[in-house]
């Protein structure tokens, strides 16, 4: 959150989780704050605010970004998916279910970001190796789990892909 005495404003139009939004926002507003404070979508978390932890990860036009490093105005005309939009209709994705089955969640603060990063990985690569999973999740910090059960969750969800 940045403080400016005399901010400038911009009329932002953006689609979030399939819904169109129009808001007058300060030009210095970060995407993370727009989602959390303006839209009350609090699944994306702020942990470092400097692009190192991945807790604020969201999809911006199909690619994961750290929303603490993106200005809201940069997303004008774009499509954003947050963790709240991943399981719409109340059914968990295979990946989310795999996190439950494999015990991949502890405090949960890193979880939305990790789920989105892993979703991105599974879109790119249906059956990633454990090495690839480790590598692709290196931008998401988890302080609780030691990551091993998170890797298992992603691998387990990838297995389900095979059955489809």
């Amino acid at each position: 959150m940045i403080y400016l005495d005399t901010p400038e404003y911009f009329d932002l139009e953006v689609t979030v989780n399939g819904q169109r939004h129009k808001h007058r926002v300060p030009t210095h507003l970060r995407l993370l704050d727009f989602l959390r404070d303006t839209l009350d979508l609090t699944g994306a978390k702020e942990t470092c605010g400097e692009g190192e932890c991945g807790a604020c990860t969201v999809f911006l036009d199909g690619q994961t970004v750290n929303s603490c490093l993106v200005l809201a105005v940069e997303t004008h005309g774009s499509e954003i998916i947050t963790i709240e939009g991943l399981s719409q209709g109340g059914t968990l994705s295979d990946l989310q279910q795999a996190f439950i089955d494999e015990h991949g969640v502890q405090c949960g603060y890193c979880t939305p970001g990790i789920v989105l990063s892993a979703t991105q990985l599974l879109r790119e690569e249906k059956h990633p190796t454990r090495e690839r999973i480790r590598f692709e999740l290196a931008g998401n910090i988890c302080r609780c789990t030691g990551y091993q059960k998170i890797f298992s969750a992603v691998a387990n969800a990838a297995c389900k892909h095979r059955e489809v």
Partner: protein
Amino acid sequence: MTSTTQYIGKPFKNVDAEDKLTGATKYITDMRFDNMAWAYPIFSTVPFGAVRQIDLKAARSVPGYIDVILAERIPGENQVGVIVEDQPLLAGKTVRFIGDVIGIAVAETAAAAHRIAKLVEITYTEYEPYFSIAESESATSQFIHETNIACSHRILKGDPAAAFRKSDLIVEAEFSTGSQEHFYLEPQGCVAFPEKDGQIVVMGSLQCPYYVQKAVARALGRPLDGVRVIQAPTGGAFGGKEDVPSELGARVALAASLINRPVKMIYKRSDDIQITSKRHAFSMRYKVGVMRDGTLQAAEITLQSNAGAYATLSSVVSYRSTMQSMGPYVVPNIRVNSTAYYTNLPPAGAFRGFGSPQVAFGHERMMDLIADRLDMDPVRLRLKNVLKVDAKTITGQQLSASVGAEETIRQACRISSWETNQATGSTDGRYRYGQGIAASIYGNCLGAAGWHMDGAGVNISIQRDGTVKVAFGLAEMGQGALTVVAQMTAEALGIDHRRVVVLLTDTNSVPDSGPSVASRNVVMTGNAIRDAASKLLPILKAAAAELLGCGADDVTIGSDLATDSKTGTEVGFAELADYLYRGNQPTEMRGWWHVPQLDFDPDTGQGEAYFTYSYATHVARVQVDTLTGQVQVRGVWAAHDAGTVINPAGLEGQVEGGVAQATGWALTENILVDRGQIITSNLSTYLLPTALDAPPVETVAVEDPDPRGPWGAKGVGEPAFIPAAPAIANAISNALGVEVYELPLTPPKVLQLLEEQEPTAGMP
């Protein structure tokens, strides 16, 4: 042990995972309250000095300004010290570290509150600060408090001087370990709101609700029942939310009561790192006398820790490190002196292990040094001296049961194929490989130093529809407390786990159950659940007997049914619950358990230091890059005696997480300070283990049930951390063929070690 149980010992899925996976869980930062204002701490920018003047002119001009609250407006006591009364809630005259909170900025928005806090102009008279233990120790005047010593502890057992004379070999070494930042992903945060009835409610990310309740009541000058503390879902704590939330809670409560609106305060990461407590850095001197066959005879140990500006939990950290300073080994003659020194750094407080990881580095490096000098296998040396049933600890406590230490050493060796992997100094171009082992001990619960608050309760309430609500007094902070509580309740009442709803802690529902620390949840809450169940089961049986037309003694309860054991007729739990209500029977019972009374003499450090102990041994394998000094931990094999394991999935999760944190402490997490200012104030400079750094872990449970634990269980949360760093250090030493005496072993330090080793590089 587990064969007759329905839930205990079976992997159990986390009850709160789904909401965390969909983003539905509302942490404190995510909660909104009507008419809410924001607060932010105004803190000292000098490490040690007197406040001369505070100028609010610029601050007041910030749009959205509501208030700046200074010490004189505290209606109650300006004191937030948990054990020692040395810490003001708002520093009035003296500031003792960069981050010492002087006032509270209150504004309409978070950004405005930050801005106000920045613009408050404070002028100081600065004093010469103390940063290191040595500086603090040598001070002769201008102490940080009345003295620079925060606390001290000792052990004297047998006749160390005589035993050293009889020893065949005496080994001496000095060690040091660095501090560590918790870096819970969710920063510290609290909200307070005044209720219409005058009660003030505090919600927050915290692990000790009753500490916060006491701190708020004290600052506001109110009775305890005027303050209610509700735990919000907590995004990691690791000890870091033990002492600190009392400060935040009391500060937001003060602001909320003065402006009569809800007030929220969330720390920014860099401030969180600068202001809040961390792991104690230790300096240690070990001298150990041993016989030629490896039998430990005598030890003399001096522990010094850097307590920072306020004592917070230093006295209990120092107590624990003293009592565990020789690990899981028998040492008949020993003297230990432990002192914590005040310095002008952020306070050191509670961090997973609570002084144990530091001394584990000391005693486990010593064991390797001794094995080396005796030319003895390090595993054999450990097995020769390890504690067993009927043996006496260094506090003279005879262990009566559940001493799985030896078995953890054997199992860790077995699963890691220790024997066949003797990789000493093996080389592969620029890489060197090695393995190390470390064993550890962990006293369960608070021990003799904290016995006066080592009780905990639950409140189990059967609803008319057959659901069962459980309130408990300890906190879920990611470690899976809600899950094991559900599991143990279902087991104790013989019901389907899906009936059980476990509530987050609320001081209105359960009496003061002490802090959620010391890995005490399973033991304390589990025993309290059994106590409550022992009161509910006779009521359920009597009702079932009426329904089934049999004697109460014939009723068995289990698998969600009450069954007449003679005829086999059954009634379901839901029907039974409804029947209880229709008969106006009691359906809610409280359970309570406290740690057995401990007989301990603080003057000699002799007696029952803790009521029981958990044990663990880790084997680590490392690859050291001789070009960059980087160490990759290739694997950790962990054997834990935590008594009966309640939730094997939870155990593994704790061990893997603990090992990863210990890997960071051992290798990369290096807090750099420049005249009291932490310069590693965020993730780009303070390096946590990523997915590429955390090692794969294989965990095995050595289940040596403790008769005093629920279903035989002991604690595991902290033991998961303790032996990993010394095992890694021993592995690095093994890989490079040089001794290591300090942590963290960052790449530059490893390169330095390599240089030391060069002259002897040609030796076999």
